């Protein structure tokens, strides 16, 4: 949780790998985030909840939409740090080329790992893919036994899961990072409930098989 005293707190994920200087990538979208950039001091509380279980799998497909990319940045740094940079493929999409975050990192990552990008609407000098993120799944070179880590807007996650399952990825190897209003971070305040789960404590990263029956899984 990041906070600006006198303004409030918000749940923000860590964009850097373990053991490195803490890095946060924040979109100015609400009351707290609008003040973060001008505040001299920022409060940090946490970390809370679950993380990507990359150590349990030989291959990882990371699928991110929009502002969902920072936790994937953290994942890549972690895996690189462990000498496992080759075991991941990254699929990332945003609305327009200018909405893509981490342009420098994307170039750096591309040197050593497969990074597939797409935008909903091409503009300017964009000559890459145009289309929604799930369409990139067909380009993945890793095997269908790979774990699929999905993070992004609800509709993007829903369609990514559908597509991943339809082309042969396994439901119990798909992980979703859910976003909800999270206030306390310790499974008490009740704002982030999805069925019997507290997203802040039991998640935010869930195995798809564990939550797929939840009626309020996608907004």
């Amino acid at each position, binding site marked *: 949780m990041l*906070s*600006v*005293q*006198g*303004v*409030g*707190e918000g749940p923000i994920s860590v964009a850097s790998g373990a053991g490195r200087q803490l890095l946060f990538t924040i979109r100015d*979208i*609400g009351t707290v*985030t609008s003040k973060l950039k001008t505040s001299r001091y920022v409060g940090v509380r946490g970390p809370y909840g679950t993380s990507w279980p990359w150590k349990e799998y030989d291959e990882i497909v990371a699928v991110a939409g929009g502002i969902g990319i920072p936790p994937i940045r953290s994942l890549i740094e972690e895996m690189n740090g462990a000498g496992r940079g080759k075991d991941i493929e990254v699929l990332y999409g945003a609305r327009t080329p200018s909405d893509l975050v981490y342009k420098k990192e994307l170039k750096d990552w591309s040197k050593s790992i497969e990074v597939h990008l797409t935008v909903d609407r091409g503009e300017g000098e964009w000559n890459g893919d145009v289309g929604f993120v799930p369409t990139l799944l067909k380009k993945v070179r890793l095997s269908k036994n790979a774990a699929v880590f999905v993070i992004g*807007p*609800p509709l993007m996650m829903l369609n990514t899961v559908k597509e991943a399952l339809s082309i042969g990825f396994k439901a119990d190897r798909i992980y979703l990072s859910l*976003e*909800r*209003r999270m*206030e*306390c971070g*310790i*499974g*008490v*305040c*009740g*704002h982030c*409930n*999805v*069925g*019997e*789960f507290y997203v802040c404590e039991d998640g935010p990263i869930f195995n798809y098989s564990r939550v797929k029956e939840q*009626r*309020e899984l996608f*907004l």
Partner: protein
Amino acid sequence: MNYLLSKDEMDAAFHSISMDFKCYGAVEREGEVVFDRVNSFGGISEERSRYAPKEFLISRNEDVLVLGTQDRKAVFGVKSCDLKGFYIMDRQILGKDPFYTEKRRNTLFANFVCNEPCDGGFCSSFGGPVLDEYDLQILREGEMYHVMVSEKYDGYFSSFQREDSSYFTSFKEEFNRKAEPLQVEGVEDRMKWDSKLWKEYASRCISCGACNFSCPTCYCFDLYDEGGERKREWDSCILGGFTSSSAGNIRNGLDERLRQRFYHKFVYFKRSKDTYLCTGCDRCVEDCPVDIDIKEVITHDYSGE
């Protein structure tokens, strides 16, 4: 252990407890029964308090940046429906919420067991009015008091006359015969996501949140900054903004929020904590300005819809 005490002996036991605890009791103030400081056993009301004693453990509003030391408190005259709420909330928040946890460990609650079922209340549907978990349970029979005390507080009573638990057992059987418990078991399987109840309730509900505030098991709260303080304040899942975030609002509809309230109580909490998030106190029914009755959620014929 179980004991049988006279009125004078209860006074003596109260006195020895008051040496170690700040004592509170249900007392009548300006026509309402509320909790306030008491210095003798005799003045404590046997009537149920106007509001559940939730505030002893969860403040309506407090600064969460400072965890002060908590006084040891003994609260007399709590009714089993309200008291059971703490044992239910414990399963989700004890040990996690430091404020609740500190206060919980420093507070003794004395259950004044109701002699008769009350109008509307249905505590016997959830294991009341004699509870399996307790600090102290007091059941008056005329001028005598049957007392059931946990091991932790047994020292305050060990010099009095012991008795076996048969009085409480037969009392509970008789109470249940009179109260006719609802068929709660299995409600988690009977309830229907698309039941017409939710829309019907939504057509009446005015989103006031009284049901949450009066409930002895509702523990949700809001966190916000005010000046130099970060505050926690009771919150209500019925209010429109409860789940709104920059990603959207999962429960825009009032019918969805009402369904969430009842699913949390009878489906989700049962799945995750193996108990229902309801004690049968009937407070939400009494305080609801549009007469939404939680008993109907339990007894409704979902399969007939």
